[in-house]
Structure formats: structure tokens, C-alpha cells
């Protein structure tokens, strides 16, 4: 009976609601899925490259610091080089002036726009969201992101598109202000992987999944240990209960 309750209660939450457009999302078997899921580091590094060369011109990655990139397998020297490419506004200095300097490991990713208004001004009124939480802030986020990136099509003849909008099968309302960001070979992968739209969409999803949940691997590994501990704990107390209760007639 209790099991039934748990199931009913879980069903009664709408946490499992699908994406905005009502079209079922493309369902990918991700390497980060499941209790033993891990971050595929080479894919995440390729995904970082896609983010940097394609997404970063409009989308911020607000809560990530350059030093965090070490977690997906970049070496310290590589990350230092990545950080140094960014221009950080720091200050005020002793003269009271703000100044520019190259980025350091401890800096947050520099956002492409100074503020939301500036972002909207050059994007036809649309605001490119911060991507560091994008996978967590959409239901079924990883599949949604992957579907969206691969979901651009020609608008059906019956549909009247607003100016500057693009048809996307998976976007709520099907009209999205973001131009199709990916096309075959828009980036050149160092490791020789063919940069198809599908491949890049997968890689950048893996990267942004890590960005949304950088603790995921540690959390799941700890979860396995905690589970093992709790099962032993519970069995021991069950046996202790049996033994202690033996004399109750």
C-alpha cells in the first residue's frame, strides 16, 4: 500500500512535465545519466570549444570561474591560457580608476554584455539566457537543449513567422529569436572528431550539463557509498530488532 502511495504522490507532482512546445523531446542516452554517470571529459572539452566559439558571443556563463575548467580535464596551463584571453575590468586602482587586465584562474567567465539591456539591444529585443544553469532550469534539460539545438527546420507553409524569428520544432511557440547556431564544421575539433551539428549539440550539452551540476560526479559517487552504508545499517538494526524482540510473547 505504501509503495502505491509513493508512486501516486510522485505522479501527482508535475516535476515530470515535458518541454514547452508539447512535442516529445529527442531522448539521448547520456554518459552522465544514472547512478554511475560521469562527465565525459573529452566531450565536455569539445563542448567548451563549441561554447567558446559559437555560444559565448551572446550567452554568458555567469557562475563558472576559469579555474573550474580544470574539473573537465584541462591542464592548469591550458586554463591559464584560456583565462588570459579574456579581458577583465578590475579596480579601482590606487588612482581611483578602473583598469583592464587579462583574466586569471579565479575570475568568473566574462559575460559578453555589460547588462541585460545591452544584450537585448543587439539581439533584437531577445535576452540570451545565462547558460551556466540552462540544463537545470528547463524540464528534462539535457534532452531539451540537445533537441532545441538540432530542432531548426523550415517553418510549415501555414505558419506566419515574425520578423527576425526562426522556426524551431521544440521551442515553446515554435518561434525563437536565436538564429540556428550550429552548422556542420562551424568549429574545428582538435581531436579529429567530425563536427557535425548533432556531434556539436551533444558535446555542448555535456559541457553545459557539467556547468549546471559541477558536483554531479562527486554527488553520485558519495551516493553509492552512502547507500551501501545505509543498507548495512538498516539490515543490522533489523536483525537487532529481531533479536531484542524475541522475548516479547
Amino acid at each position, binding site marked *: 500500500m505504501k509503495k502505491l502511495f509513493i508512486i501516486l504522490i510522485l505522479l*501527482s507532482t508535475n516535476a515530470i512535465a515535458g518541454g514547452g512546445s508539447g512535442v516529445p523531446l529527442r531522448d539521448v542516452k547520456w554518459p552522465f545519466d544514472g547512478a554511475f554517470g560521469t562527465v565525459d571529459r573529452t566531450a565536455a572539452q569539445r563542448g567548451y570549444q563549441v561554447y567558446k566559439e559559437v555560444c559565448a558571443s551572446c550567452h554568458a556563463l555567469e557562475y563558472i570561474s576559469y579555474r573550474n575548467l580544470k574539473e573537465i580535464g584541462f591542464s592548469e596551463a591550458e586554463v591559464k591560457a584560456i583565462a588570459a584571453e579574456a579581458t577583465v575590468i578590475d579596480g579601482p586602482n590606487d588612482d581611483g580608476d578602473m583598469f583592464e587586465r587579462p583574466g586569471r584562474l579565479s575570475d568568473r567567465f566574462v559575460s559578453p554584455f555589460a547588462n541585460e539591456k545591452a544584450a537585448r539591444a543587439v539581439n533584437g529585443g531577445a535576452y540570451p539566457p545565462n547558460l551556466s544553469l540552462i540544463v537545470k532550469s528547463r524540464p528534462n534539460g539535457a534532452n531539451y537543449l540537445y533537441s532545441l539545438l538540432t530542432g531548426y527546420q523550415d517553418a510549415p507553409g501555414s505558419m506566419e513567422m515574425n520578423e527576425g524569428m526562426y522556426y524551431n520544432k521544440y521551442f515553446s511557440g515554435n518561434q525563437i529569436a536565436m538564429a540556428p547556431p550550429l552548422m556542420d564544421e562551424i568549429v574545428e575539433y582538435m581531436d579529429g572528431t567530425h563536427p557535425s551539428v548533432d556531434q556539436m549539440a551533444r558535446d555542448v550539452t555535456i559541457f553545459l550539463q557539467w556547468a549546471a551540476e559541477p*558536483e554531479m560526479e562527486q554527488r553520485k559517487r558519495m*551516493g*553509492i557509498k552512502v*547507500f551501501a552504508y545505509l543498507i548495512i545499517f538498516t539490515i543490522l538494526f533489523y536483525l537487532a530488532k529481531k533479536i531484542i524482540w524475541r522475548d516479547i510473547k
Partner: protein
Amino acid sequence: MSQTEYTGVKGWIEERLPIFSFLKHSAEYRAPKNLNYAWNLGSILGIALMIQIITGIVLAMHYTPNSELAFSSVENIMRNVNYGWLIRYTHAVGASMFFFAVYLHILRGLYYGSYKAPREILWWFGIIIFILMMATAFMGYVLPWGQMSFWGATVITNLFSAIPVIGESIVQWLWGGFSVDNPTLNRFFALHFLLPFILLGLVVFHVIALHVNGSNNPTGVEPKTEKDTIPFHPYYTVKDFFGFGIFFIIFAFFLFFEPNYLGHADNYIPADPMVTPAHIVPEWYFLPFYAILRAIPDKLGGVVFMFGSLLILFILPWLDTSKVKSGTFRPLFKVFFWLFTFNFVFLGYLGGKPAEGIYVILSRLSTFYYFAYFLLVLPILGKIENTKALPESIDAAYKGNK
């Protein structure tokens, strides 16, 4: 000065503060021998409250209750504070687990008639704890200042505007302004920090009231002789620890593998007063009451029914006219009870659906049954039902079950 059985230093202290007789009471406390696993929930709830308080205090050390900073301070906890993700997920999942256990605890009470004489005051304290828990959880959900935090707070505080004449003023007073904003966040943080300690105090009274007459039990027959009861320690302490294990396993599953399953994706979008989410839905544990609120076509009516659905529990001991406490011996009651339980879960399902079409009609029917159970079924059933014969004693029932 009163005489005690203690002498020397112990006697001196005991006369001034009866700490030793309290310890003696705790050590010798007895409980009916036939309690089933539904009676594990009380101690599980005690643990759940402690988990919330301890994780909550640590979170408060890192959190910033300011509308400009709250969201990023939570992200800072998740990303940069050592094991911050563990603390925050424990707190967030812990709230769900707390409600899950409290609902089962209340259903246990409803089924076995634990609210009946001589435990009415114990029951009242339970209801007050439940209502205060809901207020605490609601304010806690506002603190991350995501989209659902902001809009949930807007919807729920707006309920008070349904009060005639003074409603609007009350809402502005609650907000500390003309919309949900920084002052609202500040006071919700202060209250969210305070209320758990008030809850703790109420739990003390709940337990004191419990210890006066002892636990109810699956037969609903009160203990008569020493043979009906066993010492709480070690029998129920060891059984409680087994229960904790089961509770923690369910807890750990969500905490480590699906920490966001019970929440809303929208709450990872920072609050934006200019953008309303497509569906504003409260946390799952509020959904049955949310469904009742929306089932009534009138705003004030909805608010009255929603609060009424909780307040009606206070008079339940007198609405249920049956002399038999336990549902085990009430064949008709059982049918209505399980229907009530199913109906309540169904209300939760409806609360998560948009208020349109068939869902509105179903919500009204479900709301009707929720109230009918208390106002029609229980008063009438007690008069007409043929109950089964009660066991002579707890001991007899226990031996019979063996």
C-alpha cells in the same frame, strides 16, 4: 518543599528542578507492545526536523537575504562552499521527506482514531505543527529567489487580499511594500529562521501530551495491565533505528540521484517580476490544498475552503461519533478512509494540473468528498456502523496475531 525519593546532591537538585524524575520517566516509559511500523513515523519526524534545523543553520551562514544577491548566493553555496551542494540538497529534499512522513503520520492517526479521547490536545498540537510547517516551508521556498519562489510568494500572499475591506492593506503589510520585493524576502528569511524553533517547542508539547496517556495502538484499546505494554527502550528504540534506516534510504535516493526531481526547473531561473511562468505551481506537498483553493469559483470562498480544510481537523475528535477508535474494527469506515486517502492524493494530482476543463469539475468533486468525509461520513458512520468485536486487551490481540 516536596519530598523526593532522591537524597544528597540529587535530592537538592530534584527539589529545585525535577530533572531526575524526568530522566526516570524517560528510562521507564512504556508503550503498547503491538505498535506496528506506522508508529515509527513520529521519531522519524523528530529526526527530519533536526536535519532541517542543522542544515538550515549552516545554509544561513552562507546565504544572503537580499533580492539582488539571494539567487547568486545560493549558487555560490552550490558551487563554491565546501559540500554546500550536499547541505542545500539535504535541506531541500529534507523538506519533501518531512512532508512525506508527516502525511503518513497524519493518515496513521486518522485510520487508528488517534485523535479521539483522551488524545485531543495531542492531536491539536499535531495540527498546529502541521500548519506551521507549511508556513515555514512556503517561506523557505521563497528564499532562493527563483521564478517559482517569486511567483509562488505573489500568488499565496495575494490570497489575503480576498479578505473583505482590509484585505488589500493586509497584503501590503505582509509584503512591506506594493509588491513582493526585497522587504518581503527579508522578513520571510527572518521568519523562516525563527519558525523551526517554535516548531521544536510545539513538538515538546506534542510529546508531553503524548506521554500523559501514552501511544494509541492498532487495536485502539487502551492498555489495562502491565502485560499490555513493554519498555520503550530497548524495544522501540531499536525498532525506530530500523525505521530511520528505511527513511534515510528513500531520502538518500532523492538526495544523491534525483535531487531536483521534487522541485521545479523554473526555480533555477532568477526571479523576474516582468515575466510570469506559464504555470505557477507550488511544491508537491501543497498541491492538495492548492486544488481545493482553485476548485471554488470565488476567490474568498477558495481561501475559506482551503484554510477550512485544515481547521476542520481541530473538531475532528467530535465529528467522528464512533466509540471504536481503530479502523481495523470498522469495516465500513475502512472503505471511506481509503477513499479519502485516494481522494487526497488525487487532489494533489489535480493541484498540479492547469485549472481548466475537466480538472475543475474533478477538483470540485474531490473537494466535496474531502469535506463530506469529515462532515457527513464520520458523524453518520459512528451511529449506524456495525463494528467488529474489540479484543479483550492489547495482550490478547498481540497473542492472537502471532
